[in-house]
């Protein structure tokens, strides 16, 4: 969270298009317990249109990863299932970290080094052209960090191209941090993100929701 407040994370060099609007602020899928910040894509609180119902269904499916993680983690490393027997918070933190590292190592091995392949490719440090078929056009990466405003409000794709770089506060300055924090935590852009996501999902609902059984009847 401190990184987010300081504008360090998430990286600003990616932009993606939703419903014709380009955004820079990447977001997490979270459940309804989180605050309505632009950083999180929460389920819609009151899905009263078919679009919102469909969006909520998909968001639920994406969000489920973290829930699944706890189920797997608790059944695999029972020290986190039972009540913690340590007396100090630092020891609790250490134990959880060590367990997470072991879990990650096991996951990496079981996926046949899939993650490690990505990592090795990353650590080579040379930028290959975008011809590896995994890249899709759903997001683009800029050449370098922009001197521009933090992530920018949602704007139409044409405006984004026309915007002049080298405007806005310097990265790391107090004003920059203030803008970053304001942007990451703005509720209005969170709501517009939700509506844009709902439109995006609705446009392709047949394909996206096919893996998940039982489409809600309202979405038909």
């Amino acid at each position, binding site marked *: 969270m401190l990184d987010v407040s300081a504008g360090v994370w*998430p*990286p600003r060099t*990616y932009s*993606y298009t*939703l419903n014709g609007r380009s955004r820079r*602020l*990447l*977001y*997490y*899928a979270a459940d309804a*317990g*989180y605050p309505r910040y632009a950083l*999180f*894509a929460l389920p819609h609180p009151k899905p009263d249109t078919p679009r919102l119902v469909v969006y909520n269904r*998909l*968001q639920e499916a*994406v969000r489920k*990863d*973290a829930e699944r*993680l*706890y189920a797997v983690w608790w059944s695999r*490393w*029972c*020290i*986190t299932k039972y*009540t*913690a*027997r*340590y007396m100090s918070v630092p*020891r*609790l933190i250490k*134990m*959880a*970290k*060590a367990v*997470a*590292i*072991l*879990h*990650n*190592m*096991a*996951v*990496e*091995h079981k996926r046949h080094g*899939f*993650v490690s392949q990505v*990592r090795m490719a*990353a*650590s080579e440090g040379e930028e290959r052209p975008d011809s590896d078929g995994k*890249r*899709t056009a*759903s*997001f683009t*990466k800029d050449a370098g960090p922009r001197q521009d405003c933090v992530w920018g409000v949602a704007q139409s794709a044409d405006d984004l191209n026309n915007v002049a770089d080298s405007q806005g506060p310097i990265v790391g300055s107090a004003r920059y941090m203030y803008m970053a924090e304001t942007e990451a935590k703005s509720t209005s852009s969170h709501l517009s993100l939700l509506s844009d*996501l709902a439109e*995006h*999902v609705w446009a*392709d609902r047949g394909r*996206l929701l096919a893996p998940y059984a039982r489409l809600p009847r309202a979405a038909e």
Partner: protein
Amino acid sequence: MEDEAGGDKLELATFLAARVRFGVLRALLVNLEGRVRKRVGGSRRGRRPNRRRDFDMGAYSILRDYFGVDGEPPVYGEDAFEERFRMPRPVFNRLFRAIYSQPYCRRTVNATGQPQSHAIQKVAAALRVLAYGEPFDRSDEYCCLSRSTIGEAAQRLTEFIINKWEPMYLRPPTDKELEHILARNAARGMPGCIDSIDCTHWQWAKCPKALGGQYLDRKGKRSVVIETVCDEDLYIWHLFVGCPGA
């Protein structure tokens, strides 16, 4: 002339660097050891002597059960291995190979000339504690180690894992990985999404009274909040523990 001066400088630089390195190492060692080691008193006249544990037997039974001795196959196969140690055998081998040469795990000889426990006992017992969440003296009978040894071994193991692998396995994704995450989530229908985030409560039985008010959760129990960010493979990209309960 110049060469000589250069050589002198080089020697001096090497010497200084070695001194600095030595100082840093010593400071690190003091820090680590001083933090980890707890004074338990040692042996004193008139107190109970150490129990006569058969360390060789403990190591032998672990080796016989999971690794095979004397050319025999192990008693338990790969499935049981993964079930008990919660990790596939190559991962265990990797961990063991890394930790084997640590000073704490090496087999030592005590003051009376008796050889002490094996590395495999300590690692196996510490992993039992992590994997089954069992008390420290539970695997005394199997691994033939005392309660305090197992507790210390568990702590050393966690510290070792964190020191060695945290920069590799618990770090923010690099650009390449982030692109992969983005592409994957875009294919699922949420472009621009970097994984899902969630919190859970980890109940804390031994919460000190002084912290009881802070760590009270909404169910009236004492618990610590764990927050993780993970992807579809259940790979943990971010972990945050220790927030006072909400």
